[in-house]
């Protein structure tokens, strides 16, 4: 391929060539082209000269600044400015979505996996309600209203519950053996009707 035709191919690469950012194979082909193309060699010289100019021009301007005063200004500013909560979050989210996409994608994938597996993980093997259940816990103790027993629940040392069903009639009789008129429900003050036939307790 003639050198001039190659110029179009190499044009955009010359800038990266000057910066030393071309991979070795491309750098070698650009160098070969430059050896035979005066126009592209001139372009490279222009790029190098222009690059130095920009830095020098801005450094000249920077020399005019009072840097001690600048530093003082920054330090005074950081001492006086609190960070608003909303702004903190906004910057944090922007940082997260722009520069931590990989981490975010991993976290999202993990979240989706957990949600997908949740029904399986949460399906605990519930035991039957009857005698075969491994563990049982006393939730409440109640008696039938017309049963003449009062439940007394005590916690055992091993975690079991001890339930006593105390005969109401027996207690009341012990306290007031004189008869029905003295049988009073503790707490309400209402007379308690005692059915002597009713012997069974209540339910758990």
């Amino acid at each position, binding site marked *: 391929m003639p050198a001039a035709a190659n110029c179009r191919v190499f044009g955009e690469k010359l800038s990266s060539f000057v910066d030393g950012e071309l991979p070795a194979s491309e750098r070698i082909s650009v160098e070969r082209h430059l050896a035979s193309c005066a126009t592209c060699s001139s372009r490279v010289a222009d790029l190098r*000269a222009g*690059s130095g100019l920009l830095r020098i021009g801005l450094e000249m301007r920077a020399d005019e600044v009072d840097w001690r005063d600048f530093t003082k200004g920054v330090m005074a500013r*950081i001492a006086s400015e609190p960070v608003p909560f909303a702004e903190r979050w906004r910057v944090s989210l922007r940082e997260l979505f722009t520069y931590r996409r990989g981490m975010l994608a991993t976290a999202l994938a993990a979240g989706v996996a957990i949600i997908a597996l949740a029904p399986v993980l949460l399906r605990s093997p519930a035991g039957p309600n009857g005698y075969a259940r491994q563990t049982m816990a006393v939730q409440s103790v109640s008696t039938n209203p017309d049963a003449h027993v009062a439940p007394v629940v005590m916690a055992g040392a091993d975690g079991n519950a001890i339930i006593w069903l105390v005969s109401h009639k027996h207690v009341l009789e012990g306290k007031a053996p004189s008869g029905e008129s003295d049988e009073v429900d503790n707490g309400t003050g209402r007379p308690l009707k005692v059915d002597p036939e009713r012997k069974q307790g209540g339910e758990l």
Partner: protein
Amino acid sequence: MPTDDLILVKRARDGDQRAFQTLVERYQRKVYSVALGMLRDREEARDVAQEAFAKVFKYLDHFKGDSSFYTWLYRITINIAIDILRRRGAAKGEHVELDENIQMDSAEANIGALGTRLGTNPQKSLLRKELAEKIQEALQEVPEKHRAILLLREIEGMSYEDLARTLDIPKGTVMSRLFHARAKVQKILSTYLELDEAKSGLGGE
């Protein structure tokens, strides 16, 4: 040997303001130069540079250290400068072109003029100051995002990898934007040199 940036960041995060001051002193000239290249106005550039440092300090807790401190600092500087340019454009009723696919006029005029007049070491040239002023003017003709890349490359000497990370763009886009930005600036400078030669009637200085 200067203390590593990340160590200073850690100390600053723990409340050591002296450590943060060292970071400010280390980068202030370059941050200011980038801001000046973006905005051209010295007062605005100073404000932007100070704001960038203040912002960095405020959000020091968000800096996780998985990228360089300076890429983070320049990213914040560029974002503040672009916000100002947008406000400026909106105030003037102008549309600020930020489309990276913008077609730039990269036709070259007077190829080799810059290299011939300045040589590879522009500091030796008497034209240096004049062209250094002119190049800042020429920079304003370059779209903001292209300008930011050129400035970070020329002032900080950032690698293409760091440029891509700082501006969150692919490396190929870095290469392309740099090429277009340089072509535009060179065209303006070459035209200026041509006019200068025609005015003086000389081929050299």
